[in-house]
């Protein structure tokens, strides 16, 4: 379980995040939703120590993340941010192999190679491993980065808007992939989502954020409700049930 306690982040005097308490249960897929500037990415950055909090702490299965060595944490928690522009021209295999850095520090063993192959297979990029990333389509590139996270073989995997700039086909494929990572590999997946229908269909838990605070948490039917979502986004949102599935209509 990821436990967030009194966590806050200020830029100058401006608070961007202020969370008294938040528990992300172990297992399953948790979706973080909310309007732009709600602090979703900041929360993910603080949990994965890409950014340092102004105050408060994050506990990973009871251990304060600040007390863990950086490679020890990287063996338990992986994160993928939105901005993945690389200066170096890496091949898919180069990239995914970095997922084994916390284990082997660059000297890949046979086990590491097997893990890399397995991750490539899971995202459906076997056969592409010697391609350069700039030779791939946006969807393949995103899957390569997800393979990097999977190769890291952590209990927790955090994704910041992994569906950005993907067409619907690839977006669905990526979301199913994350679902499989939770169901078949037993990972805890935390994902920031903008499209509420993806959250409604693929998540187990939903965390709704607004103005740096967590305003609602619960299962999908508990949070994906018109009366909660309308004030959250400040617009007209309808939630209906079709064939027993929640459909969010944001088009008024």
């Amino acid at each position, binding site marked *: 379980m990821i436990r967030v306690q009194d966590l806050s982040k200020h830029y100058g005097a401006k608070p961007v995040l202020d969370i008294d308490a938040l528990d992300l249960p172990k297992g399953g897929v948790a979706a973080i939703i909310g309007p732009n500037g709600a602090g979703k990415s900041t929360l993910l950055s603080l949990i994965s120590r890409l950014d340092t909090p102004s105050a408060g702490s994050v506990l990973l299965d009871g251990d304060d993340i600040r007390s863990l060595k950086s490679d020890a944490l990287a063996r338990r928690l992986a994160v993928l941010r939105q901005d993945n522009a690389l200066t170096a021209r890496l091949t898919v295999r180069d990239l995914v192999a*970095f997922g084994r850095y916390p284990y082997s520090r660059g000297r890949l063993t046979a086990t590491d190679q097997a893990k890399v192959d397995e991750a490539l297979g899971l995202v459906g990029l076997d056969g592409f*491993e*010697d391609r350069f990333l700039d030779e791939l389509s946006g969807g393949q590139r995103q899957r390569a980065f997800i393979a990097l996270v999977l190769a890291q073989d952590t209990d927790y995997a955090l994704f910041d808007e992994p569906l950005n700039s993907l067409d619907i086909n690839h977006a669905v494929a990526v979301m199913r992939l994350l679902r499989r990572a939770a169901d078949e590999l037993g990972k805890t997946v935390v994902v920031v989502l903008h499209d509420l229908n993806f959250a409604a269909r693929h998540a187990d838990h939903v965390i709704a954020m607004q103005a740096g605070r967590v305003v609602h948490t619960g299962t999908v039917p508990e949070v994906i409700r018109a009366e909660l979502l309308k004030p959250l986004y400040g617009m007209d949102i309808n939630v209906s049930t079709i064939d027993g599935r929640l459909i969010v209509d944001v088009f008024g």
Partner: protein
Amino acid sequence: MSPEARTTRARQVSGASVLVGAALVVAFLTVGAVGDWSFVLSFRGDKLITIALVACAVPLSTVLFHTMSDNRILTPSIMGFDALFVLIQTAGVFLLGSARVAQFDPRLVFAAELGAMTLFSLALYRLLFTRIARSLELLLLVGVICGVLFRSLAGLLQRLIDPGEFLVLQDRVFASFSGASGTDQVWAAMLILGAGVWCRVRLPALDALMLGRNGAIAVGVDHRRLTFETFVVVTLLVAASTALVGPITFFGLLVANLAYRVLPGAPHRMIVPLAILFGFILLAGAQVVLERLLGFTGTVGMVVEFVGGILFILLLIGRR
């Protein structure tokens, strides 16, 4: 590119480079030699050692600087490092006079220069990486402004100085492979060796920096510590090379980018040796051209920048 293809290409290119480098060494030592061979060889061999040291220090420092800043256009010289060196030299001669400067223990002078440059770089580091944080444009701007400031100050002092003193100074602040003393060579070699050992230990972490700051932290690199260490090592390397031959760090940009182009995405253990080989070829080649074709009329920096500049433009045009 498969790992095997990459290894094969690395072997081929470095093999060819070693051959070219060896041919240049022979040419440098023998072409146009008259008189006593033992004198010629020891005199030219001494220069060759300086060339080899600079060819290690500059490409290594440039590649490390690129990795640290996650940018392949920046060089330590853009950040004003060697301009500072010129300023220190100029200020020394201006304030104390060349006769007084010459009296000091050269080891002491070297240590003082090293200390001043390290202090400057640490101040810059604090400013850039803790306060201004991650804005690359700002980093560039601050560096360029520092460079211009140092150059202008040095230029002003050079105009005010006694013409005789200026001649002495000129020897120090224009790149040349002939002036280096034995003590400077030993110091520089020790610094380069130290940097090499540090590199050996940190290679995998440096590779992981190719993922960018966030990516590197995500796979468990202690990013803060690593960038700080890299910054210190780069400073020491630049100090070593500028103290040896003067400001000549531009060619590092060229050979580093050449190596990236030949082996895209390759780890540092492949890139660094290749960049060093290219650097050696460029420097030794430039020195041969200067001595044999131009008859010493000019500076080696001129030749390097002329040849290097053309190559760099070709590199940019040839980009897909």
